[in-house]
């Protein structure tokens, strides 16, 4: 081969490999810092680490301690309540808002960003603002009293049984705009010919939505569910800003549990074990989704 063709083929090879070369550093970083450290945490959960990591393997003792903590059960229960309500209400509200906005109203361009604005705030800001709003002595209850409605009470924030619902309120306020935006995009992607055909056949608006539009939005439901589920399991900053885990320990969630046991209580082994349980919960949600996606792709191929 002549030098010219060797150079040509080298350049050609480089061009083909370029995407891989560009992605390689990010890939390496993710591999180390995400997956490598996940493996490290999993290893720590099999040790009795207290304040700093301790690498002596002790089997499942940390897990035994974890499941003996009453706080953990409170945390799991709160996660169940919060997760179900958060995901359910967000999807319902988001879908409703999207359908309403999709009716080609005039001020759609103004309403859409208004609904989406809360998403721009960080959870800490949302938590702090809602804490002031829901505080009986500072916010809603005090305002109602000052306006003359003195028997009004809304003390969910300081009530041990109801405090978790205040977190749901703040989280739904933050995320339903985002879900609305996803659904709106999905609705816009539906072929209007189908709708017109159904209207010609005499289907009512409600029937069209129930039988045609919503089933076609199935992939959107799935995306929304995945995003909301992982946000629900990870929520730490919202809980800390809104209730600080309180009153008492009434709004403990696995994320706050993990943080307090690893860093504040010098029980890193138990904290690592709780992190592994959280990972397994998320995996239980993501893995079937990935599996179904890959299977579809193979079918399409």
């Amino acid at each position: 081969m002549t030098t010219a063709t060797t150079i040509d083929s080298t350049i050609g090879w480089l061009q083909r490999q370029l995407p891989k070369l560009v992605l390689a550093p990010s890939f390496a970083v993710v591999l180390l810092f995400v997956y490598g450290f996940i493996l490290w945490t999993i290893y720590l959960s099999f040790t009795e680490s207290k304040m700093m990591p301790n690498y002596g393997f002790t089997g499942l003792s940390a897990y035994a301690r974890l499941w003996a903590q009453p706080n953990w059960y409170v945390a799991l229960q709160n996660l169940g309540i919060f997760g179900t309500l958060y995901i359910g209400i967000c999807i319902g509200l988001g879908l409703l808002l999207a359908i309403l906005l999709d009716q080609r109203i005039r001020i759609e361009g103004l309403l859409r960003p208004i609904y989406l604005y809360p998403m721009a705030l960080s959870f800490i800001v949302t938590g702090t603002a809602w804490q002031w709003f829901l505080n009986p002595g500072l916010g809603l209850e005090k305002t109602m009293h000052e306006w003359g409605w003195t028997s009004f009470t809304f003390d969910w924030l300081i009530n041990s049984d109801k405090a978790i619902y205040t977190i749901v309120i703040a989280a739904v306020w933050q995320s339903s705009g985002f879900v609305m935006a996803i659904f709106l995009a999905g609705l816009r992607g539906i072929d209007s010919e189908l709708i017109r055909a159904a209207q010609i056949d005499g289907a009512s608006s409600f029937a069209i939505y129930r039988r045609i539009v919503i089933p076609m939005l199935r992939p959107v439901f799935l995306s929304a569910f995945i995003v909301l589920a992982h946000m629900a399991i990870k929520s730490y900053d919202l809980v800390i800003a809104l209730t600080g885990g309180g009153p008492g320990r009434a709004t403990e969630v696995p994320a706050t549990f993990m943080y307090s046991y690893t860093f504040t209580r010098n029980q890193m082994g138990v904290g690592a074990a709780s992190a592994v349980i959280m990972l397994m919960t998320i995996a239980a949600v993501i893995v079937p989704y990935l599996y179904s996606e890959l299977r579809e792709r193979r079918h399409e191929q």
Partner: protein
Amino acid sequence: MTKNRLARLLGSAAIGIALTFSAAEAAEVEVLHWWTSGGEAAALNVLKQDLESKGITWKDMPVAGGGGEQAMTVLRARVASGEPPTAVQMLGFDILDWGKEGVVADLNEVAAAEGWDGVVPLALQAFSKYDGKWIASPVNVHSTNWIWANKAVFDKLGIAPPTNWDEFIAAADKIKASGLTAIAHGGQAWQDATIFDSVVLTTGGFDFYKKALVDLDQETLGSDTMKTVFDRMSQIRGYLDPNFSGRDWNLASAMVIKGEAGMQIMGDWAKGEFLNAGQKPGQDFLCFRFPGTQGNVTFNSDQFVLFAVGDEQKPAQVELAKAIMAPTFQSAFNVVKGSVPARTDVSDEAFDDCGKKAMADLKEAAGANHLIGSLAHGHAAPAAVKNAIYDVVTNHFNGSISSEEAVKQLMAAVAGAQ
């Protein structure tokens, strides 16, 4: 490049290098602490200025959070990264935990030269030393079984400082009836536990406190006296205002200072807030021991733990350790902070009436062997047990569980955290 330009370039490079070297040689101490409220920051300033007069720069690293939890987390990150701060404010068992990790400096030389062993109470030395080596300089001795009251409110309602539980409840009733908040409190776990300390001490006495919270004896933790303690905690809960959840301790002090509340059950760092607001002990505010606990002192001692640092920083670190233990500093700092010097040979001349009372109480308690570590502030049991007890106390205080349930959970929590 022309000769001129090259010369100028090399010249500026040389100056730059020289500056970097000289900057590295300037003595500097980096201090991690959580003294961020008004009174506390003023007290720390005394140490800052003292060191600056010796030519040592003070690099401040404050991490807010009354009980020091956030500061301890930051410390962990710094030690894990291999760059610990020069000195860290720490309480009780945390000091011993870090000593065990082997990342702290050995101060035996300084201690021997300055004669620390003779002037620091033994109860404090238990926390300043690890494995026979001095690792921390104690700054002060705080005690936690105090009540701080607004004198104007007490005078107007004709209340004298209560000396036992019944008088205390009567006083609280009077204040509540007059429309004010009887007890100002912040609903954070460590504050709830501070009240718990005093209620245990007044209900069961010194030996009960020691058996339950230091020795962690299961039978004592499950006794009827402990149930009475929890019942009394519920009683105190009835005297708080509805917005106490999550309030910071210094905002609760502000309620008493402004006359919106009658009393605050808090350690003597609260005095710093009153002084900072321009109030005088005996004239504007009253300080008295929690009813029934006179003669006992539950203490916690802020100590600066010195971490193992590089050789260039060691001289500055030694200066810091000496400066902290100097009698002049101990007097000046504690006058402002509201606590009592860690050295027993400091005169009480400069202290106000509450400070003089505190020093007298400390002498009395130490002499009678009634000086004991506060559980709420990490001087009675290690962090894991302390936090487990926090959980039960704060859950019960917020009304989630009954007193019987709380006693059972207390026994289980302490057993499970050891």
